[in-house]
């Protein structure tokens, strides 16, 4: 029990550290909200235009707004892990952190928690604005929204941990991966179109991504009015594998950093 309390205390300490960081800079908070909101506005206008010219889009009310909000859950979750970890590298704080009793997996738990908070703030604000400005409520998805949210968040965390592992291995020169990697995946996820649109040889790759099943599931609800549990379970199973791989790669990179003396010397 004491060990569990001590672990919880250390994770809370790291969360507090990231909340202090957010509070110390209003541009950081604004940035969290700004991009999801801009994306939502762009796709809301696109949705309005296409709804007037396409029967399919007209039937599927607000499908692009829902899709972009869910896409941002994935993107922000990934950034929430990687960018927050970069803060430790920028401030050359890793040496202090890892001579404290903080375990690497406790840091991972804190990163995932702060990523969740940042995603809720960023995408939550955009979702509320979509309701206010375009009368589109993603909350109407009900429990499916909760399932979609967590499936995408877990995939984002896993990719975020892999990006962190790459940066631990190759240094801050690789930090642009945090932004680049997710956009390489975006065309394969079928955010705005069904997976069948992709060339046949790419479809198996797309189906190996949890997000593809989530976006197929979103279209099934909005267009056909059906909640496809088969798609959800596939996404959950893939997420489990992704998270195991993400955490393992991070821990291996951390061990390699300890072998190569990077924890004390990595920084600006």
């Amino acid at each position, binding site marked *: 029990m004491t060990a569990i309390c001590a672990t919880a205390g*250390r994770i809370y300490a*790291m969360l507090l550290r990231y909340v202090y960081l957010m509070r110390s800079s209003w541009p950081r908070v604004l940035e969290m909200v700004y991009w999801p909101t801009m994306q939502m506005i762009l796709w809301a206008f696109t949705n309005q235009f296409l709804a007037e010219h396409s029967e399919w889009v007209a039937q599927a009310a607000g499908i692009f707004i829902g899709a972009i909000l869910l896409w941002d859950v994935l993107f922000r979750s990934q950034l929430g892990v990687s960018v927050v970890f970069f803060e430790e590298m920028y401030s050359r704080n890793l040496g202090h952190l890892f*001579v404290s009793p903080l375990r690497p997996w406790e840091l991972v738990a804190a990163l995932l928690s702060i990523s969740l908070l940042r995603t809720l703030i960023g995408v939550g604000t955009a979702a509320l604005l979509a309701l206010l400005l375009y009368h589109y409520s993603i909350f109407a998805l009900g429990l499916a929204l909760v399932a979609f949210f967590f499936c995408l968040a877990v995939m984002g965390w896993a990719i975020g941990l892999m990006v962190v592992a790459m940066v631990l291995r190759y240094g801050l020169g690789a930090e642009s991966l945090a932004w680049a990697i997710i956009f390489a995946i975006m065309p394969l996820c079928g955010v705005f179109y069904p997976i069948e649109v992709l060339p046949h040889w790419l479809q198996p790759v797309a189906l190996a991504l949890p997000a593809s099943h989530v976006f197929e599931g979103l279209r099934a609800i909005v267009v056909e009015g059906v909640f496809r549990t088969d798609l959800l379970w596939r996404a959950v199973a893939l997420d489990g594998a992704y998270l195991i791989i993400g955490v393992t790669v991070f821990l291996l990179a951390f061990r390699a950093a300890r072998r190569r*003396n990077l924890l004390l010397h990595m920084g600006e």
Partner: protein
Amino acid sequence: MDAPAIEVSGLCKRFDGVIAVDDIDFTVPAGHICALLGGNGAGKTTTISMLLGLLLPTSGEIRILGMDMRRERYRVLPRMNFSSPYADLPRRLTVMQNLSVYARLYGIRDRRRRIARLAAELEIDGFLDRPYGSLSAGQRTRVSLAKSLLNRPQVLLMDEPTASLDPDTADRVRGRLEAYRRETGATILLASHNMQEVERLCDDVLIMKGGRIVDRGAPAALRERYGLADLEQVFLDIARSDRI
């Protein structure tokens, strides 16, 4: 004879064929202040990093407070701490926020009282609410020292604790370290280039060159052995000789 707080045997570190630390052995008795002396690249920081567990040795054994650092690291870490110019604290957080986060990481119960006491002792109470990044080098060093004393460590490792400090601040930091050792009986291992500091603070000196310990002893014994007036002359004599 005091039981050793730090025991190192056969410690080696190689990076891609380059030997940074080459089969060193030493012990530091509990309650002693020991200096690692050596030129740039002698292996001092690498040795300290391995003692902290930040760097994995290629081979060899490290025991701190009787525990094996490879297998029992997380039992030892709450009882030790460190300060180094190579590690910094988050600059946007205030001094108070930084100390508070680390106090929680070390599981300190009386956080406010502990921070207030250290702030008074190290004269950082006047800028607890300022961002760490806005402080001068001397102020940051004192904050870093406060962080390293938060958990009342039994073993304190310091890499160049007074580097880049003005003489007044450096003197205060040395005074605080002496007082801390006196009050708690802690063991301190410090890497330094400042020979006056080493003569004033340290009971034992380990002199490193090319990754090896080439000589060791109390400052007075080393002076006597080499027949030189001060430790700086001893250091220069060793650094410029062919001895490895």
